[in-house]
């Protein structure tokens, strides 16, 4: 069976480690990190058109680290990640966006934000009507728009 994973095993390891640096797990908020297996699986399954820039970012990361990210001590790992963030351009911006968009649609994370883990359709949302009396001072104003003469 062919391996249809868009990233090499080393790139997957680095992506997981970097994602965990971007968004670590939090006991305080009871949420996983972005290195969580389910979130990682979502990233790999949906990379699609972002594959090339993500690979590019991971190549940059490998050059900066000189070794697998998980093999570095925590301080060095953090320093490499921050350097990549500062110098990685469009590629790291895309990778970061991929991490964020998969993280913030994870059921556990969405629930932790007080939101329902579902698409907007078909349930929708309830929007409160608001206080229309706020418009009273505006209603009292004279017309603001300029009248203009008719066609020449």
């Amino acid at each position, binding site marked *: 069976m062919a391996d249809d994973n868009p990233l090499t095993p080393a790139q997957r390891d680095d992506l997981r480690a970097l994602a965990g640096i*971007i968004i670590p797990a939090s006991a305080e908020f009871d949420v996983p990190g972005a290195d969580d297996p389910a979130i990682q699986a979502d990233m790999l399954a949906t990379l699609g058109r972002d594959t090339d820039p993500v690979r590019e970012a991971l190549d940059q990361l490998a050059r900066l680290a000189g070794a697998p990210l998980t093999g570095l001590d925590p301080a060095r790992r953090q320093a490499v990640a921050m350097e990549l963030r500062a110098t990685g351009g469009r590629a790291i911006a895309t990778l970061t966006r991929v991490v964020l968009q998969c993280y913030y649609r994870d059921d556990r994370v969405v629930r932790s934000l007080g939101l329902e883990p579902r698409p907007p359709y078909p349930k929708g949302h309830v*929007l409160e009507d*608001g206080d229309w009396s706020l418009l009273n001072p505006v209603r009292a*104003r004279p017309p603001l728009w300029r009248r203009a003469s008719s066609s020449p």
Partner: protein
Amino acid sequence: MNDPVDVLIIGAGASGAAVAWSLAETKMHILCLEQGGWMNPATYPSTGRDWEARFFGDYSPSPNIRARPEDYPINDDNSPIKVVNFNAVGGGTIFYTAHFPRLHPSDFRVRSLDGVAEDWPIDYDTLVPFFEENDRMMGVSGLAGDPGVPPRNPPMLPLPLGRSGALLGKAMNRLGWHWWPSDTTVATVDYEGRAKCINLGHCTPACAQGAKASTDITYWPVAQRAGVELRTHCRVREITTDEHGMATGVVYYDADGAEQFQAAHVVVLACNGVGTPRLLLNSSSGRFPNGLANSSGFVGKNLMFHPYAQVYGYVDAETDSNRAPPTCLWSKEFYETDKSRGFVRGYTFQFGRGVGPVVEAVASEQKGLLPWGAGHHAAFRRLNGHRLGLSAICEDLPEEHNRVTLDPELKDCHGIPAPRIDYTIGENTARMMEHGIAHAKEILAAANATDICVNSPILHGGWHLLGTARMGTDPARSVINEWGRSHDVKNLFIVDGSVFVTSGGVNPTSTIQALALYIADQMKQRLANLFD
């Protein structure tokens, strides 16, 4: 061999649909060619858990990023504002925010009133019956009585203020500045077969509920029942002409990629302010060496976008976020000219309710508000669901160096030259944007917002494509006459945003469609001598 038709419309978007519907009552044989296809609302982003992520991919506002088979590439490298469009039945109305203001009466008299640009050859009053007809066909929600605009009576009640609208309204009242619930094409009650809005919130990249008006669900069903033929996945390459300088039809590529010729007695262009000049310039011939209908040299010139100056911040209170249609209010406080501001003309403030969690995370990370590491979670919870924002939609004045040409190298999948955009923001508009940013910050301060962010101009904010085949009475200074017919080719009409003489400071779809209905009405009144 295709049978000749009486009227051939190119483009099934905002204007093409309106003109098709209006002309249908003539019982002429009307055919519309559209390069895109019918959309399937069951596949719209808001139906899936990846609804926000798709905004960065197959539902990106940029055709260059989106790159659907129906899209064509656009070289907009030489522009600080990138073109936004959508190619399908419904066109840009599939992919718009449904904000539906009209141009103001003063927008048609900019030379007379303010000494800049040129007056339109028609006026606001001429368009009023067509604005009203279009409001009914598209289904507009809004609130009568706004002192900021001429009287109008939207057929549906406005969208609720919600939390965001109330917060912004209170801030505007503190400043004593005008605000009003926006006119939108979002149905607030069941309307003409459309279900009412249930606040999916993700309105711009297509509405799965069908509450947002797009012409595939408003004009087109009625036009087709009246006999108009709509042929999809047909991309027009050029308009052909005869020895008398009359249009004879078009060459297009059908859904299988095969080259076809379609003969027509009348050709109507409805391809937007980029697609229309592209097609005219690509229709050059021995008789029309500089492009069709271009004896003035104005085809492709005077491109206007409406630069957007976006400002937002964060409040302690919870906002509506993504859980409601994104636009809620407008302000006309700075719309009409006041020369003490340092510029002429003006802008509309368009207020937003907030964004969803993914967009918030991506934007805040890019702005440096959302850190990597341990502080991430607390920071995100302070930002998410607390955003209030607004944009100044600034009037762009026509400048000939802002233009659409044919790219010498880039081509679409059919080998048709892609449009190239050369555009800079004018000095008057730049001053207007700075004014808008400063006053938006005052509004957000009045709402007690902090962490203020500015995007000026919005990079992927070229929603409004205007001015590149403008109307006028002088054939040396305009492309079409005051009722929509080409000065040069007497059976060629243009009905899209390219005919705008000036841009105003509002979202243009309402005015584009009113103009299309007006031009269709003029055609119907002149059928006996349409080519004289």
